[in-house]
């Protein structure tokens, strides 16, 4: 049985079908990249899985259990970990406090509510130790007392991954984790994700536009287009398929190069011929 699966998952907004009967299974120990043109429904698909959006039809199953009636927070507790492009960090708390909150959330019962005075002290050290462990693993150990709002962007994204690690989910969901990062910062996040792959009991879902990232990290690619699943397979095969090459990568089948010459003309007159703008 697969760790995570969606069955005929569909959502409609008015007359528009944003996600169309997507059936897909995600096995433990794999990283699946989800690609597709803008507006294909990738983020909407994620929203359906994590519970931010209610499905019009179909199911989301974690270890065979139907998650459909669970709220997003219950789905997180069930083992779904979704990264939200920085909105799940607390800017006015320190790095350490953020991670400790996440670690605390995984502890059952009274520890989560912090009402038992004795356990607060004894477990505080345990929580802090665990939080420290995670911070060291993502190389944020030295910044543990910095306010998150003061961290540079790249470190905030690292912290986001650390937060997910602290929650110890069974499923990791990343939505363009290296967006806006340059060639120095992106590899850091990608390394972290690569390390997550080492745990064969988890599965990772990655929405991504950068093909080099996909080729490097993904065991499997699924392609969404107009809300439907149109391709599913090994990275090399999917990337080489004609539909992906043309509609997504913009590589013309005629000459195999990116659309240089065939770009539509703007009809823009060269400078000298235009009248001066007022």
């Amino acid at each position: 049985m697969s760790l995570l699966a969606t069955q005929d998952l569909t959502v409609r907004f008015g007359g528009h079908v944003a996600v169309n009967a997507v059936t897909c299974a995600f096995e433990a120990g794999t990283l699946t990249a989800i690609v597709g043109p803008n507006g294909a429904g990738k983020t909407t698909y994620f929203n359906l899985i994590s519970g931010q959006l209610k499905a019009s039809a179909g199911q989301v199953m974690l270890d065979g259990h139907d998650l459909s009636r669970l709220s997003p927070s219950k789905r997180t507790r069930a083992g779904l970990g979704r990264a939200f492009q920085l909105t799940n960090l607390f800017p006015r708390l320190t790095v350490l406090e953020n991670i400790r909150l996440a670690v605390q959330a995984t502890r059952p019962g009274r520890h989560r509510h912090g009402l038992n005075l004795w356990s607060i002290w004894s477990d505080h050290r345990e929580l802090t130790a665990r939080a420290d462990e995670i911070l060291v693993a993502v190389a944020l150990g030295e910044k543990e007392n910095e306010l998150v709002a003061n961290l540079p962007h790249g470190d905030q994204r690292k912290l986001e991954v650390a937060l997910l690690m602290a929650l110890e989910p069974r499923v990791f969901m990343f939505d363009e984790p290296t967006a806006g990062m340059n060639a120095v910062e992106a590899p850091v996040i990608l390394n972290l994700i690569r390390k997550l792959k080492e745990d064969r009991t988890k599965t990772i879902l990655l929405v991504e536009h950068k093909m080099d990232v996909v080729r490097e990290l993904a065991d499997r690619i699924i392609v969404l287009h107009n809300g439907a699943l149109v391709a599913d397979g090994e990275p090399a095969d999917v990337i080489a398929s004609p539909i992906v090459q043309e509609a997504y990568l913009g590589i013309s089948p005629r000459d195999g190069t990116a659309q240089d010459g065939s770009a539509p003309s703007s009809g823009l007159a060269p400078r000298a011929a235009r009248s001066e703008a007022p």
Partner: protein
Amino acid sequence: MTADLLTLRGVHTHIGAYHILHGVDLSVPRGQLTMLLGRNGAGKTTTLRTIMGLWHASKGSISFDGRDITATPTPRIAGLNIAYVPENMGIFADLTVKENMLLAARQAKHAGQIDDERLKWIFSLFPAVEKFWNHPAGKLSGGQKQMLAVSRAIIEPRELLIIDEPSKGLAPVIINNMIDAFAQLKASGVTILLVEQNINFAKRLGDTVAVMDNGVVVHAGSMQALAEDEETQHSLLGLAI
């Protein structure tokens, strides 16, 4: 007519208690595409916002086409025929795509007055803009909003385009279209100042490059020179152009 369309000299910007720009010197030559590079937090977005007058330079000077715009209010700077695409896109979510575009087309009093040919060109580059023309812009996906943001900047001819990370979240085919669009704009004489991490922009379009770190420009020169100097590339950016 000065060779540089836009010049910054010794620009400092403070935001509240934070001193973000520590004396930025930047020259943007006419008719060329200048790339502003640097890691996150280096001050690139702050520089763009200071140029547009959204934040005030506490020291230094900014001049555009020979006139000093350091203390000029934002609408007037835009009125000098400068288009700005901010990092967060600035899309009006409750307005339709058409209304967003109408606002950007300053010369048009209503939608019928928008330049048809220009619009057709934009539709061919960014199909989503045509597809969702009468829909609220808030319903667009992240990448589609990005397309709309850039479309707004190019709906009318401008002297200078200041663009902050336009390719974030765009599918490769759309990125190709955008690079082509910028190439055509450059060919028609438009000057572009671009913050962008995607290396294809630099390779295919970059004429000049300025690299920022810690609120100052640490390297400035031609893209060609940088492309030939692998050592500097690595030390500055870890890139290989």
